[in-house]
């Protein structure tokens, strides 16, 4: 019954246009914000705007706001599980070497990643960091 009602639910054209222009405005903001450097906040701001846009699409264009609550539950539930996976994995990947400092030789010295690291730009610095961690875990797991 409820499902049928939801399917027959037709939203006024104006609402679609409003949501659509809202999305466009947010896109402009994304582009504008990308021109400025907020340091650590860069990612947070970009992701924040993206989340708002995705929510608008899901709620209005995909009718989640007017559907049976169970669909909302499934949708939010799946996001929650994704969140659990990513956050718990980050407990690991962001905090390696907390107690013992990690010292590792590069795993494959000729690997592409180390070549980019030598050019010394900001992005390759991060890459060198992660390869540092990865090389460490490699030496540990190879014991088993």
């Amino acid at each position: 019954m409820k499902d049928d009602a939801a399917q027959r639910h037709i939203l006024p054209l104006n609402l679609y246009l409003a949501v659509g222009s809202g999305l466009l405005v947010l896109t402009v903001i994304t582009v504008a914000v990308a021109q400025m450097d907020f340091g650590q906040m860069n990612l947070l701001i970009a992701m924040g705007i993206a989340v708002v846009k995705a929510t608008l699409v899901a709620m209005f264009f995909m009718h989640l706001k007017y559907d049976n609550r169970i669909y909302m539950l499934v949708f939010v539930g799946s996001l929650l599980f994704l969140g659990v996976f990513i956050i718990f994995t980050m407990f690991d990947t962001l905090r390696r070497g907390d107690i013992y400092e990690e010292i590792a030789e590069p795993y494959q010295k000729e690997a592409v990643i180390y070549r980019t690291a030598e050019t010394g730009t900001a992005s390759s610095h991060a890459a060198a960091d992660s390869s540092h961690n990865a090389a460490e875990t490699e030496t540990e797991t190879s014991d088993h």
Partner: protein
Amino acid sequence: MEHTIPEKHYLNEATGWKSWLMTLDHKRIGILYMIMVMFSFFLGGVFALLLRWELISPDKILMGPEMYNQAFSLHGIIMIFLFIIPSIPAILGNFVMPLMIGAKDVAFPRLNLASWYIYVIGFCFAVYALFTGGIDTGWTFYTPYSNETTTAVIPILTAAFVLGFSSIFTGLNFIVTIHKLRAPGMTWFQLPLFVWAIYATALIQVLATPVLGITLALLMLERVVGIGIFDPAMGGDPVLFQHFFWFYSHPAVYIMILPGMGIISELIATFSHRRIFGYKFIAFSSLGIAFTGFLVWGHHMFVSGQSDLAAVIFSFLTFFVGIPSGIKILNWMATMYKGSISLDTPMLWALSFLILFSIGGFTGIVLGTLSIDVHLHDTYFVVSHFHYVMVGGTVMAIFGGLHYWWPKIWGRMYNETLARIAVVLIFVGFNVTFFVQFIMGTQGMPRRYYTYLPQFQGMHGFSSIGALIMGVGFLLIGIYLIHAIFKGKPAGPNPWRALTMEWETPSPPRAGNFEGAQRLTHGPYDYDKVVPENALKQYKTL
């Protein structure tokens, strides 16, 4: 009171191989699954016996190190992906669950048949891998080794990937069935506990299995085109694979054990002739296990180079898994307390489950303790713990369930004496095989080696004798169960005097399950209010 087999039932209403391969009847699909899954169990068992044979002495008897790696990998992969994950949901869930809720079939019969065909395709990929280089990564496919070995990794990953979809389809089907097709009047709290367990399992199947699919797909991409997700040479992280893998595979342990717990609830209530104690606690603890099971995967990675913070968090959370399992065990014992217990074969399996699963559960707490696990990791202690949970738990439950519902499935009873002998053989053989492995583990015997130090000779030999006893026991079960299909005494509709709905229809049931629409007249465990009809035998109370 003598019973006869009804003239028309689902087994003879249509004939010919086509009527089986194109069937949409959940009962027949359950039997199709039974044939494939039990054949896989046999295959995995053969590998197990080969492993124990090799381990009789530290010398090379049958296999060298490479062959041994292949044998334990295949034992694990076959037993996990082809046997234990599909076993209870696909065989007994398919056959019994719709009957239990008074439905004519599952919600999507075609999807149900499709899931069986997908299983068969996965099975074929596994067999193909077996003949084209085998596999030597263990069932966990850890990187970086799985990225480098020359064995048939891609076919076996494809097999596990495909089998995952079979599992998802079954889970989806069961969720919809339980939501939509319950008999009029049957509320959620009048569902038999087996149905609750199948429901919780189905939720995990649908939520977790896609992650396995993604993981295996990433690993295949890594191998074929080198995308560099897990390869440290390209900035990847091999430990990330373990996160992906265990995010599925720890919950998958509950896909394996929860339906078993559901069977045990049925067996204990029926054979204690008593209202189940703490119905809601048992039902919700299934959901509790399903949920907490998603938060503990890192306990497999304490020595994998995972950060110390993550290890501490995962160890802490792991202890919470013990709570819902403990609730179940205590409620089962409270159900038995002052019940009139009859020790028929299914109940003997249930009692074996209680003992063995408790040992498996407690040793799990031991292994979940971070500081202890650093020492016990990758020793026989882990091997033994895992087998106490999976064989002592799930396999005891599935054989208990098969013995319990065998008369419903085929309409005929097996030889009770032989069946009791078989339970004793399995119980004794199992403990002989695995108990010494706890001891070897604490003394530092590492897993996954074809050889060992001479000091372990005695215990390894003892363990191998146990495996032989189990082998004989399972062979015996195979013989008398198959014999019962053709020559067993007709069982009648309700041989165990149980109150759940599947016993209200003739054995074997008609193709449409029930005559007319089924209505709920009493709860599944109202032993204090209703006397079961159609009882074949009178029970002596003990």
